[in-house]
């Protein structure tokens, strides 16, 4: 063996030993771990709540014949008794145009609803399906619908409210937003059926 060949073999052996014993390099962690895909619903606030809503009220049947859909505003104040049950007071007001036969043209009126309700809830991660219902006192602001025999002497009526919707919890534990729709039966009004649909913002303390 020549001296040059012995030197080349020694170099190759040294490199092989170096590669085989070298440790792998590790990347440095510079970001926080990703949050879980959904917050824990158990950490959502629970207790007294208030919500404000805006939407529409549409009369159906005979009352719907003589009224146009109106804009509605409402407030709900309540308490989460359990994760699956709320009790709430609901006040809603809506302004509608009356579309009556002549001579009463261009008239409008307001509908007020004062209700006591319960809400059943099913929480699925950040979403919540709910059903709600209750009893109410409904009031129309004038006797404008009396001429067409929808109201009869009194502007007040006992009512039943039933509906449901979808709630979406924000990342803030106090706030959620949602969509809801309710059916309202106005017992003393002829053809007194109505639907409300609303979006809301809810704060739970």
């Amino acid at each position: 063996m020549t001296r040059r060949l012995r030197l080349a073999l020694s170099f190759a052996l040294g490199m092989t030993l170096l590669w085989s014993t070298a440790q792998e390099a590790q990347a440095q962690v510079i970001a926080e771990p990703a949050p879980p895909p959904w917050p824990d619903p158990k950490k959502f606030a629970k207790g007294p709540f208030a919500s404000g809503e805006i939407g529409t009220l549409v009369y159906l049947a005979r009352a719907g014949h003589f009224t146009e859909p109106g804009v509605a505003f409402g407030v709900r104040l309540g308490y989460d008794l359990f994760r699956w049950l709320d009790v709430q007071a609901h006040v809603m007001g809506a302004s509608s145009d009356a579309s009556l036969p002549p001579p009463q043209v261009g008239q409008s009126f307001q509908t007020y609803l004062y209700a006591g309700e319960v809400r059943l809830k099913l929480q699925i991660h950040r979403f919540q399906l709910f059903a709600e219902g209750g009893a109410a006192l409904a009031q129309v602001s004038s006797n404008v619908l009396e001429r067409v025999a929808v109201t009869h002497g009194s502007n007040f009526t006992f009512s039943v409210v039933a509906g449901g919707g979808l709630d979406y919890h924000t990342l803030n534990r106090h706030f959620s937003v949602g969509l809801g729709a309710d059916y309202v039966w106005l017992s003393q009004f002829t053809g007194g059926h109505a639907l409300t649909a609303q979006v809301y913002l809810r704060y739970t303390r």
Partner: protein
Amino acid sequence: MRAGLIFLALAACGCNDPVYLTDNGPIETTPAMMGGGFAPAQGLYVLPVRKPKQNERMALNQLQQQLMLPDKVPWAQAKDFDIEIEWSVQNLDMTKATVIVAVDGGNEFGDYVPSMYIDPNANEEDQTPPPNLLTTEPLVIEAGTTQTGVFREDDLQESALDLEAITRFPSGGDALATPFMVIEHRSNISRIGLEGLPPNDVIPAHVRYQFTVTADAHVVMHYSVRVRDHNGKLAKPTDMDLYVSTDATLAPPVAPPMP
């Protein structure tokens, strides 16, 4: 929360919502007995105002003394009510019709009847009746169609003021001339004809409505009286023993001189 409470308070007070009073029946033109054409049709509607209680009567007397008014203070005052009259006229004929809707009537003290204010001493061509308190332009209504309109709240406030001048305090004591002056002028533009009203006068409301429909065809008029009652003086139309007389005509305290 505060907005909710305000909303509740507004809802509870009712925001002075109107009451709609339906007509006593349609007013329909009929063929004239003589000369062809159609005779004007008339109908009277009297606002149902409740009678004052004893203490309210006493308060009116006290107010008269306090304001040093020469005449009684009205019970049904213009400021007590905001009144609007909605009307519709349907042409029942096969040809188009030209229609005029007019409203006269009066306050609790007396009526204004334009035909009574023709000056018998004037030249024959000047013997024209003064205008109606409220009237429309001539309306052309196609066969079988309906036209609607409104005498607004401010129109009824103005007619109440005009009636006060005509029936109790004519300008310069000239009962015949006053209707021409006050009806032709809006009081917010010109006070012509209102010089006879005492200072601090309490204006009576226009509470009797004499409707006249003049048409050259067979038409029918419907109306509805919308009232916002500010002081709880409106009664139900079905109530008995109401305040304002329902007589066909009510002679005013200052009547025009008889011919």
